[in-house]
C-alpha cells in the first residue's frame, strides 16, 4: 500500500462505534410500532435520537471538540449511516448531522467567532436541535439550488427540524422553523421513514450566516458530504437485504428442500454478495476521501453514487422476490428497505447525473 492509497478498512474505534449503534438500534427495533407511527407522518423515535445523539455522541462526529463535538470525521459518520441503513431507521442524521453540519462548518471557515454558527453547531452536535438544508432531497452536489423566494418541495426531515438553512441570492440564512412566516407542509413520501415536506419561508425571515458566494460553496460542500455518505447508508440497506434473504431461503422449504439450495436462487444471492462487497470498498473510498479532504473527493463521491444506489435497489428487489408472497406484505419489513433504497437512488442526484460528473472529471466526453 502506498501512502496515497485510501484506507478502505474499518479501524477498531469504528468497529466499537458500530457495535454501540447496532446495539441501540436492535434494542429499540419495533417494526409494527414504527409502521403505525410512519403512516401517521411522524416516524421519529425521540428517545432513540437522544441515545444516538447525546448518549453515543453520533450527531457530533463531524463537529470539532471546541464546539462541543467529537472531533471525529466522515469515516465514523459513515459507519453510523451503515447501521441506520441496516435498520432503515427514521432519524434526521444524514440531513442534520451530516449535510447541515458540514454546510455550517464550511460557513464557519472565516468567521470562527460567529456565535450564531458556532452556537448552532454546538446544539446540533449535542442533538438538542435539528437543522436541515432547505433544498430538495434530489439535489446533486453540483446541481441547481433553489433561487430564493417561493416554495421548496421535497425537503427531507423538515418536519423534524428546529432550524432551516435557506439559500437566497445574497447568502445562506438560518430560519427558526417555529418563527412566523415559515410553513412546513408534509408531503406523502414513497419512503415513509424519511418524511418530505414543502417548505415556504418569508423572504424577510431568519439571520444571514454566510454571504454569497461563500454560501454557495458551503452548501455544495454539505451536499457533497451528504452524497458521499449516503453510499454508506445504501451499503447498510443492501447488507441487511442480503442477510435477511439468505436467512429466509435457508429456512424456507419447498419441494422437500431449503429453497436456498437451488442454484437458480443461490447464484442470485452470490451475485448480490459480490455487489455488496464492491459497494463496501466504494463507500469506504468515498468516506475516506471526504475525511482526508482529498482532492479526489468529488470523483470518489460521484463514483460511489454512480454505483451504490443501484446495489441497494437490486438487493431490496431481490429481497422482495426471493421472499415470495411474504415479501409483498405490509407486515414484512422488506418493503421499508425497498422504498428507502428506491428513494435513495434519487437522493443527492441520480446515477446518470453522477456518471456525467464523473465523465467530466476523467475526460470521457460525449459525441460531438
Amino acid at each position, binding site marked *: 500500500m502506498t501512502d496515497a492509497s485510501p484506507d478502505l478498512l474499518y479501524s477498531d474505534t469504528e468497529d466499537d462505534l458500530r457495535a454501540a449503534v447496532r446495539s441501540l438500534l436492535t434494542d429499540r427495533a419495533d417494526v409494527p410500532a414504527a409502521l403505525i407511527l410512519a403512516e401517521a407522518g411522524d416516524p421519529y423515535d425521540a428517545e432513540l435520537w437522544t441515545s444516538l445523539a447525546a448518549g453515543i455522541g453520533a450527531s457530533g462526529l463531524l463537529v470539532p471538540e471546541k464546539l462541543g463535538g467529537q472531533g471525529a470525521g466522515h469515516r465514523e459518520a459513515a459507519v453510523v449511516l451503515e447501521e441506520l441503513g441496516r435498520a432503515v431507521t427514521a432519524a434526521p442524521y444524514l440531513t442534520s448531522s451530516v449535510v447541515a453540519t458540514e454546510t455550517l462548518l464550511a460557513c464557519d471557515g472565516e468567521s470562527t467567532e460567529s456565535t450564531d454558527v458556532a452556537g448552532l453547531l454546538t446544539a446540533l452536535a449535542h442533538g438538542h436541535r435539528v437543522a436541515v438544508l432547505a433544498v430538495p432531497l434530489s439535489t446533486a452536489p453540483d446541481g441547481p439550488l433553489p433561487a430564493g423566494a417561493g416554495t421548496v418541495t421535497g425537503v427531507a426531515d423538515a418536519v423534524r427540524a428546529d432550524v432551516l438553512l435557506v439559500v437566497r441570492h445574497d447568502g445562506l440564512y438560518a430560519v427558526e422553523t417555529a418563527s412566523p412566516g415559515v410553513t412546513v407542509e408534509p408531503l406523502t413520501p414513497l419512503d415513509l421513514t424519511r418524511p418530505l415536506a414543502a417548505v415556504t419561508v418569508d423572504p424577510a425571515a431568519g439571520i444571514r450566516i454566510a454571504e454569497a458566494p461563500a454560501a454557495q460553496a458551503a452548501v455544495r460542500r454539505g451536499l457533497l458530504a451528504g452524497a458521499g455518505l449516503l453510499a454508506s447508508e445504501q451499503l447498510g440497506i443492501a447488507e441487511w437485504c442480503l442477510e435477511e434473504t439468505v436467512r429466509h431461503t435457508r429456512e424456507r422449504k419447498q419441494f422437500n428442500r431449503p429453497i436456498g439450495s437451488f442454484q437458480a436462487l443461490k447464484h442470485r444471492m*452470490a451475485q448480490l454478495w459480490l455487489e455488496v462487497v464492491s459497494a463496501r470498498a466504494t463507500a469506504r473510498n468515498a468516506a475516506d476521501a471526504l475525511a482526508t479532504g482529498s482532492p479526489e473527493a468529488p470523483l470518489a463521491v460521484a*463514483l460511489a453514487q454512480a454505483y451504490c444506489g443501484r446495489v441497494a435497489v437490486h438487493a431490496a428487489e431481490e429481497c422482495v422476490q426471493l421472499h415470495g408472497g411474504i415479501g409483498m406484505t405490509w407486515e414484512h419489513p422488506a418493503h421499508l428497505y425497498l422504498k428507502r433504497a428506491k428513494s435513495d437512488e434519487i437522493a443527492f442526484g441520480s446515477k446518470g447525473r453522477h456518471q456525467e460528473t*464523473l465523465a467530466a472529471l476523467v475526460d470521457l466526453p*460525449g459525441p460531438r
Partner: protein
Amino acid sequence: MTDAAELRSLTRKLLAEHPPATTGRTDFLKARFDAGLAWVHYPAGLGGLDAPRSLQAVVDAELTAAGAPDNDPRRIGIGLGMAAPTILRYGTQEQKERFLRPLWVGEEVWCQLFSEPGAGSDLAALGTRAVRDGDSASGDWIVNGQKVWTSSAHVARWAILIARTDPDLPKHRGISYFLCDMTDPGVEVRPLRQITGEAEFNEVFLTDVRIPDAHRLGEIGDGWKVAQTTLMNERVSIGGARLPREGGMIGTVARTWRERPELRTHELRQRLLTLWVEAEVARLTAERLRQQLVAGQPGPEGSGMKLAFARLNQEISGLEVELLGEEGLLYSDWTMRRPELVDFTGRDAGYRYLRAKGNSIEGGTSEVLLNIVAERVLGLPSEPRNDKDVAWKDLAR
C-alpha cells in the same frame, strides 16, 4: 523475526557479492534463492527466511533499484502460483529441496495436468488411472489417460498431476497427487487450437507414463485435498493483480474514446460510463482485499474477484470491438501459434474479445464460483447430490 532493516542489509550484501552487472542471470537468481531472498515468507533453506510475506516488497524494491534481473514470473506462473505452494505444504523435505530452487529460478517450467475431457467442473470425476507396477521394487506408478486445457505443456519440464489410484472408492477419495516428468516417453503434447487462432493450451496424452513413488505428493488417496491448495492459489492469482486506475482493459477503450471522437455515439457512451464505474469499483474492491490481507484479516472477497474480472473483461472488450466500427470487422492474424505466455490484454480488440471468453471458464467457471460463494461464504445449502457415496467406477459417464 527478520525485520525490514535486516532484509535490506541482506539484499545489499547479495548485490555486493553478486553484482548484477557482472553476474549471469541464472547465477544471480540462484544466489538470491540461496540467500533466502527469493520468497522471504518461505522457510530458510528453501529460498526464504520465515519472514512476513509483506516484507518481500522491501527486497524487491532494493533489487529493482539495483537493476537486478527477475525470474520472469509471467513465464513460470503455474510453478510459482500453484506448484510451489502445494509442494511447500505437502512435499517431503527431499521433494522441496529437489524442486523449489529450479522452479523459482525458472530453469524448470511447470504445467498443470488436472482437467480432462470428461472432468471439467466436476474435476473429482477424473478418469486418468495410476496403477502400482507390481514388478517394480521402488513401487513405480504407471499412468494412463488424457488431460486437457494445459497451458505451457509444450515448454514444461514438470507437471502437477492428479490421477485415480482407487476406482472402488467414491470419487473424491480415490485420487492421488503426483509430480510428473514431462520428458517421459509416454507423454505426448498436442496443441489445442482455440477461437483466437492460437494454441495457448494443449491436450496431453499419457500412455504408460512411469512415475516413481518418490514423486507422489501427499498420502495415497489424499490427492483431492492436496489439489485444493493448488486450486485456491490459482483463483487468487487469477483475480488478484494490482492495477492503477484505468490499468486494465478499460484503459485501452478509454484512450480510444478520447483520441477518436468520430467513433462516439450516445448509446456506446452510456455503456462505457457504466463499465468505467464498474471497473473502478472492481479495482477498489481488489485493493480493499489486499489491505485486508496485509492487515492479517483475510476476507472471502477473493473468490468474488475472479467473477468480476471475467464479466468486466468480456463486456469491455465487446464494447471495444463495437466502438471501432469498421475496424472491428478486421482481425490481426489467424496464424496458428503456440505462445509461451498467456496474454489477456495484448494484440487487437478482436483478440481481446475472443480471449476474454475464456475468463469465465478457466480456473473454475463463473457458475461454479457462484456456487462456492453461495455455499462457503453465504452458508447456503448445497444441491442434493447422488454421487458422494458411490464408487467412482459405478458413476454414470
